[in-house]
């Protein structure tokens, strides 16, 4: 229908959407373009080159970034896995545990990390580790990440479970399945798209975190964001742009995967 007669269409909303996308992409486009700059100065364009991509892998900072990348990815994978497992159990208890006094407080506790401003969480975790004498290092980052990833894993799982009627489990039990079997054979497969989305969200949130990591990381331990931060504070360097562009590419791959996973519906 034409925009003037169709009651759904608002003239100008398309323009706003495009404007929105331009704002979102312009800075990233700049990063991507300058990452191919041959010059070592970000202000001058000296032609196409893969120099900085090579630099990322063999340059003077390559060891630091390799270690940081390893830390980031290993922490993200472990923390997201733990958080997803914990969130799956919690979502089952909350969506399928009947009504009980601890239900609302549990939901509150699980969503607390999103509600508390990140800086507050970062500082309080630091003080807490300090006051109980934890030595800061890889494990403290891992613990903190696992904790704040839980709500990000929980929310998609819970949303998914909202759409799963409990008649499915009833039907399974009616057909002689025990509770454990009904969970494994029916509920878990049905939750799977939510679990995968939750995992990916947790993974990315962990990979992206700077503030909390920066407070709880021990000496000499860097994740990609903290390493990048250490570098970019003194100005954008082309090698950082190359790393960023690679991360952007990786994000696109991840988002694409998660997109297909969330579209993937094992019920069709």
């Amino acid at each position: 229908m034409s925009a003037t007669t169709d009651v759904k269409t608002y003239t100008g909303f398309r323009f706003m959407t495009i404007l929105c996308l331009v704002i979102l992409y312009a800075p990233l486009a700049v990063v991507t373009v300058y990452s191919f700059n041959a010059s070592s100065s970000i202000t001058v364009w000296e032609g196409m080159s893969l120099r900085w991509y090579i630099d990322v892998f063999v340059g003077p900072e390559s060891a630091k970034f390799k270690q940081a990348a390893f830390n980031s990815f290993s922490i993200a994978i472990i923390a997201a896995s733990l958080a997803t497992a914990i969130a799956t159990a919690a979502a089952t208890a909350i969506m399928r545990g009947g009504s009980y006094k601890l239900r609302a407080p549990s939901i509150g506790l699980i969503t607390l990390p999103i509600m508390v401003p990140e800086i507050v969480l970062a500082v309080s975790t630091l003080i807490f580790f300090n006051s109980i004498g934890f030595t800061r290092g890889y494990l403290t980052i891992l613990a903190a990440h696992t904790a704040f990833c839980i709500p990000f894993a929980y929310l998609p799982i819970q949303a998914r479970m909202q759409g799963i009627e409990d008649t499915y489990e009833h039907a399974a039990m009616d057909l002689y399945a025990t509770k454990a079997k009904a969970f494994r054979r029916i509920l878990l497969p049905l939750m799977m798209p939510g679990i995968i989305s939750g995992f990916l969200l947790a993974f990315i949130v962990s990979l992206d975190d700077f503030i909390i990591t920066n407070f709880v990381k021990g000496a000499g331990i860097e994740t990609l964001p903290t390493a990048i931060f250490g570098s970019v504070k003194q100005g954008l360097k082309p090698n950082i742009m190359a790393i960023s562009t690679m991360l952007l590419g990786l994000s696109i791959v991840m988002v694409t995967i998660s997109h297909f996973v969330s579209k993937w519906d094992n019920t069709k």
Partner: protein
Amino acid sequence: MAGGAESGGSVAANTYAKARHWLLMPSWFVLGFFVFAPVCVMLVYSFLTKEFRGGVIWEFSLAAYDQFFFDRGLFGDAEPTLQWTYISVFWRSIWQAGLATILSLLIGFPTAYFIATRPEGSRAFWVFLVTIPYWVNLLIRTVSMKFLLRDEGPLNELLISTGLISDPLHIINTNLAVQLGLFYSYLPFMVLPIYASIERYNFTMSEAAADLYATKLTTLRRIILPAVKPGVIAGCILVFVPSLGAFLAPDLLGGAKNFMIGSLIEEQFKGNAGNWPFGAAASMVLLTMVMVILLIFARQQRRAEAQS
């Protein structure tokens, strides 16, 4: 007809009632230990005495809150008056975060609406477009924003080369830059919840309004907005809360010149000031503020739910 007990996801669904405490145990443990306990420690610290040059002395004191709320002059011996320094930091944060939220809403709502009215098959693609930058490191986003906005950065070069302006726009290190940075950091948090609620919105309602002689603008104001209010409120909160505590954007884009709450708190633990109880107290004030906002939101949400 499906009775209450058999409809899915209801509070009463209780297939795993017997195991619920075991299932919740890991989350209680992890979150209780690594989130709840730290926040409690923070609460305790805010009532302790500051140690000279960082740290705490285990002596009860209200000094941190006193410092936050009362001005005792440069030398600490004047008659206490209301302390505007920190209140104005908070006020500035609220104001900055608020403007960023409004900016996000103004651009995010039409975007969300536009996406929600795409054919079902292509909506995912649009959502995908909006979310890609969000999955990219916040730091990189902020730094590249800074690079883009510099006086001699690509934006100004572009504007000057097109002849729109002759002198570079001075954006970096201004409040506008901070707002833009916050907007840029959290925009998808605005778009996604609004999108979700518009997608659930029954467009027959718009047709009913048009059928009853309402113009499109009236329909937007009187019918659509009230109907998608929960999404709008959720989006505003998800942008506003993190903006309030942000310190990357103020630090990198605002030149660390005018503190926002996040920077103020960070400074107490990592920077020059080293006043832990004060940082803890400021955190508690911030936390309380956020909780109050969320409670208001929860009440709104419950009211909205009761309506439909």
